[in-house]
């Protein structure tokens, strides 16, 4: 009886899991269908694999947009790490009152809709010729991710045993040795988690990319909508584009699930 109940719950679990995953599964399947098969009703399950959709992505120059996505995600993540590591170190290992106040400043900026500072930023960028510039977009992404990165990073730095740091200080280690030799090795998994999350947020970002880029610096998310075709069938090519654009983050997240959870829960999850 008990065993029966157990397998019933397992079946129920799988039903929900499959329901949740279905839209993603369907996107994967449709990406390999011909346009006729992708839009067929009733849906086709058995079909001949077709790579025309992927071919059309290449023809439309999707590689350039993916390169832009990669550039802005990597560059902004590097900026965030360079700024957030020292800040988190100061907040956690050498906390002083005025520095603690900065912590609340950081989290409060996250509540401000990006749109509010975007109008002047848009105009400043426009007058400086920085619209449609991938580096400018990277800086904006870095500013967007910095508050959350400082918070996450600080929670990882908090786990460093303070005795070790103090012992090193007594032994006369200067600040740089202390940071590089003692603290960084301990918080490295945390830094990886923060980097992963910043990368994901930048890669998936749509709103700022839509407004601040037009062609040269356009990233993959705003490019996707251009596959929607008012006249013909487009589900196949749209699914292929969506799959290609989403895949890097999907794979990164699947592989690094543990880091992802720890980072997102801001260290509350041990």
């Amino acid at each position, binding site marked *: 009886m008990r065993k029966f109940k157990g397998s019933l719950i397992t079946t129920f679990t799988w039903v929900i899991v499959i329901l949740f995953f279905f839209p993603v599964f369907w996107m994967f399947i449709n990406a390999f269908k011909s346009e006729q098969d992708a839009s067929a*009703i009733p849906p086709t399950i058995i079909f001949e694999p077709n790579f025309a959709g992927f071919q059309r992505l290449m023809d439309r120059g999707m590689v350039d947009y993916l390169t832009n996505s990669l550039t802005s995600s990597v560059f902004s993540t590097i900026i965030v790490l360079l700024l957030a590591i020292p800040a988190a170190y100061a907040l956690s290992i050498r906390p002083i009152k005025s520095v603690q106040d900065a912590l609340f400043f950081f989290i409060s900026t996250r509540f401000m809709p990006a749109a509010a500072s975007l109008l002047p930023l848009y105009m*400043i960028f426009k007058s400086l010729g920085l619209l449609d510039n991938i580096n400018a977009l990277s800086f904006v992404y870095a500013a967007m991710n910095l508050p959350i990165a400082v918070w996450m990073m600080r929670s990882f730095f908090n786990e460093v045993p303070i005795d070790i740091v103090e012992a090193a200080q007594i032994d006369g280690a200067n600040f740089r040795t202390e940071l590089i030799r003692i603290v960084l090795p301990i918080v490295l998994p945390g830094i990886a988690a923060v980097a992963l999350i910043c990368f994901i947020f930048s890669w998936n970002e749509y709103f700022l990319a839509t407004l601040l880029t037009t062609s040269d610096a356009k990233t993959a998310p705003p490019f996707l909508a251009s596959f929607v075709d008012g006249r013909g069938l487009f589900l196949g090519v749209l699914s292929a584009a969506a799959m290609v654009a989403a895949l890097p983050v999907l794979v990164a997240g699947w592989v690094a699930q543990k880091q992802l959870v720890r980072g997102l829960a801001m260290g509350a999850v041990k």
Partner: protein
Amino acid sequence: MASKTTAAVPVVKQKTYLKKVRLSRALILPALIFSIVLTQIPFLVTIYFSTLEWNLLKPTEVKFAWFENYLAVFEKGDLLPATISTVGITSLAVIFSVILGLLLAVLLDRKFRGQAFARTLLITPFLLMPAAASLIWKYSMFDSNVGILSWLTEALGGTPIQWTTDLPFAVVVIMLTWQYTPFMMLILLAGLQSQSREVLEASSVDGAGSWRTFQWITLPHLRQYVEIAVLLGTIMLLQVFDPIAIITKGTGGTKTLSYLLYERAFVGLNVGEAAAYGVVTVLLTIIVATVALRNLFKVFIDGGAR
């Protein structure tokens, strides 16, 4: 001799303390400056813009207009509906995704074959690029001609629903719930797995049924995890933009504050009015956030102390 040493110690201590303070400040300064230059100063500029009469069609005739733009914003009367939409969409999506996330976390906390694989499949909606997810939901799921849902309702003998035109609000909430349930599930699952096994065993030895154990031990333990999940989910959902821009374009009660601002600021030509919208939106978002999260903020304040 003795008095000399006692005098020297505080001086050295003070010196190292000052050095420590200076170092701490120097370390945090770059991040602060960066953040201020790219977010706070533009916001101050937005406030300045909001007091100007400035139309892009007449770029030479910019003049100071006091609060005229704010009056115009309030006269349009679209702020209240946008606030209601924002609160409605955010709270419904948070509530549904926390409930579903808790259910899934409990289901995945059991040992069964393929548990890790099930978890991997389940977190995918949260990782999937929101723009891609919105497009797939709009055209592959909800579409009235080729969407799976329409086919399913018809196959089951119902009349297909024009989801995106008739029920845009429900569409946005469904899609966001789908997207955020995995996020809630991950945090709650981590909470479940951090429970002490001894306490759970002791409770079952004492004869408490599994439901009572869940109610009296697991739920109180999960509280802080639920708080973190709700807080982070709310922060992200309050500013949600992608599914609204892609699926509904703000129709049918889905015009949230961030979409309204986008529409006013980048589609119109009136810079002053757009800036006024920006300022008011920020204030409203902050009010909504503080009211909704006042209690939850305790998590962060408690977490603020080392």
